[in-house]
């Protein structure tokens, strides 16, 4: 085996390890949750249902968001978009009693909000992060105003539970998750769109000089993220057919953590992966639930958030070490 072969083998081993680690972490967290719930004498099926329902929404919204993160951009408004879409969906249903129309409004609003952010960024050359921070404030405020106007400050707004109850089945959610993930994986890995987006995220200057238009691919990325938000908003209503001002509030931040947990660099580029959102989304929800079970006190939520944050920093540090050691002087 010559020097180049050895280098190739060691490089591939490292890459395989990086790929496998998030899956191992997911399996470990799943095992830990089962063990803890069983040890505490709680109902495992109930906990698995909670993890599944929360995980599906986060994984779907994060899967769409991977397209934005791949470009090296950052959208913090996705939680607010989910809330806003769900709010307008509920109001539409209550006004028309039409489920298809509600769905249409949810998707139109979700994609519209995303598109608006991307157009603002590309036409006025405002950094995407800035436009999404502004969007987050505006959408949260408008949604809160609508919810308090139509549902009162504490109650929120809702649709009759029987409208979406037939869809509140694991099989339906799995099908939705599989179909949307398959669409994203196809676009990301098997079309020119995904390849070009990864390249843009890695080096926008070089991508431009390779004939790749940042604006065009940013718009496509935001449309894909909008679709994820639309599905996430709908599944949120399927799970709990009401919307309050706190619905989906933490999704925007949770997506960042989920994507990193799934093994994708936060800077996007060539090492971006769709499965990172799926694996990371469920890992994050599992971790949250484990921490809630372990830190069983009034301060539980705060402490579990702190532990999650430390976990996040550790994962970013570890992935950073791997990246840094790969750079050799010439």
């Amino acid at each position, binding site marked *: 085996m010559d020097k180049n072969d050895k280098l190739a083998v060691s490089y591939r081993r490292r890459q395989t390890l990086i790929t496998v680690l998030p899956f191992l972490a997911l399996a470990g967290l799943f095992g830990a949750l089962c063990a803890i719930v069983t040890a505490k004498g709680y109902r495992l099926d109930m906990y698995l249902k909670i993890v599944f329902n929360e995980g599906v929404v986060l994984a779907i919204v994060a899967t769409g968001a991977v397209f934005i993160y791949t470009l090296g951009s950052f959208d913090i408004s996705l939680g607010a978009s989910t809330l806003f879409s769900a709010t307008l969906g509920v109001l539409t249903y209550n006004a028309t009693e039409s489920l298809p129309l509600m769905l249409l409004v949810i998707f139109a609003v979700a994609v519209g909000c995303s598109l608006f952010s991307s157009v603002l960024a590309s036409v006025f050359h405002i950094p995407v992060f800035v436009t999404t921070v502004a969007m987050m404030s505006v959408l949260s405020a408008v949604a809160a105003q609508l919810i308090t106007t139509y549902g009162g400050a504490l109650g929120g707004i809702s649709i009759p539970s029987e409208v979406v109850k037939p869809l509140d089945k694991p099989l339906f959610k799995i099908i939705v998750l599989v179909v949307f993930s398959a669409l994203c994986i196809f676009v990301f890995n098997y079309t*020119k769109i995904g390849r070009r987006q990864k390249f843009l995220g890695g080096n926008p200057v070089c991508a*431009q*000089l390779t004939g790749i238009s940042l604006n065009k691919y940013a718009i496509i990325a935001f449309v894909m993220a909008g679709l994820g938000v639309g599905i996430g908003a709908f599944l949120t209503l399927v799970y709990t057919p009401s919307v309050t001002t706190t619905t989906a509030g933490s999704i925007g931040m949770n997506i960042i953590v989920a994507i990193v947990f799934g093994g994708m660099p936060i800077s996007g580029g*060539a090492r971006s992966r769709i499965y990172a959102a799926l694996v990371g989304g469920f890992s994050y929800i599992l971790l949250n639930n484990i921490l809630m079970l372990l830190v069983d006190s009034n301060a539980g939520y705060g402490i579990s958030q702190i532990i999650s944050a430390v976990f996040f920093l550790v994962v970013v540090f570890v992935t950073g070490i791997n990246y840094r050691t790969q750079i*050799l*002087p010439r």
Partner: protein
Amino acid sequence: MAKPILEMKGMCKRFGSTVALDKVDLTVYPGEIRGLIGENGSGKSTISSIAAGMQKADSGEMVFKGQRWNPASMVEALEQGFGMIVQEQGTVPGISIAENIFLGGISQFAHGPFIDRKKLMAAARQVLDRVGMDSVDPALPMGLLDMQDRKLVEIAKVIARAPDIFVVDETTTALSQIGREKIYELMREQKAADKSVLFISHDLDELLATCDTLTVLRDGKLGRSFTKDEFDPDLIRTSMIGRELQGDYYRSDTQATCRKEIALRAEHLTAGQAVQDVSLAVHKGEIVGVGGLSQCGMHDLGKILFGAIKPDAGSVTTGSGAAITSEAVAMKQGIGYVAKDRDVESLCLSASIQDNIAVAGMERYAVHDFLILGGRERKYVDQQIGELSIKCAGRDQQVSQLSGGNKQKVVFDKWIGRGSDVLILDCPTRGVDIGVKQAMYQLMVRLKGEGKSIVMISEEMPELIGMCDRLVVMKDGRVTKEFTRGPEMTDTEIIKYMI
């Protein structure tokens, strides 16, 4: 003989399974300009960066000015009198030129918690004058400067500390002739002050002209050292690559040849002050050189021809009359562009060799111009890797791990693989070793023979003379002279129209 200023003994360094340095000894004396030469990946930058505090050796001993030497950082090394101008970007774009020059030493301008900006700017002005940047305002943000000026600021940053030893790591490739002359002058000043220079370059001519001694590195091992009286270009080349160069270096024919059909035409191009009323026609099977000083507008011209800069006036069209209005249109029309700033403009360093080569050639292997199938893509990339014999661990290897020469081969593959009919090459041999240079030149001759057209923008006069059918000389954004390949295309004639 005087005591050495720097002694490095048994230096070893590995990066994973790659041996970058294998028991290398290096000694530099006061008043000496020592050249360091070797192929890409031979360990030149590694050994100098260890001495300059950029990274640690795995083993070995260093003595600097009679003391054991193990600097914790480049800043510490510079404070102790060891300055290095790094090969790639060593400046911070978001702060001023003056702050870059005194980075790490800004406290000398402090009055309590405040910085005396007037004093800082005056000191920066003085240093900038020394490197020939007398017309540049030190208060300007670094990010506004082009590559050459950024490099000059790096030089200023090092000489501002009056180092005892001054490492120049492939810096001259980023500089025009005037910039190069400036740095040679600084080296001579250093020598005259009984201080030392470690000069790393791929340009044998400049090493022979400047250095007192020359050390050859090969595959991380110490090769032969030459004193001035032993300088023999052929012997040094052979010592570098471990074999004699086969075949011609530049083109062997002495006459301009091309086909009748025009491949690319530029008419009355004007873009700000950089390019002024430039017209140019490139024929099929022709290599057209564009030469001049770095600021003459030739680099902007390259970008205009590729549609990356929109001209204020004038047009670029293909032989069939299609207007080039953007990079995407240029690519559709079979035009490829190799940028001067390879790491920033031509490659995505965090991506693999496969990603970099494949991204430009999707039309060649995508099904229905949309669907990417792994097998077809891998086959395409492997073919390109084999075409230019890229030395790599495999198509999945990250481009940042490759040597400069192999990186440049990836860039060439990216454009040649997609079957570009017209190639705009901006400084195509910048920072590549002699063996890769020869391979590039032979490739250009082959492409010319296949009827492809090449626009070769270069700051290296020998390669322009050696390779071009026609040479367009630019000065202050305008074409001052056009030469046709032949006996009158000499450097003394050309330089008259450059300066």
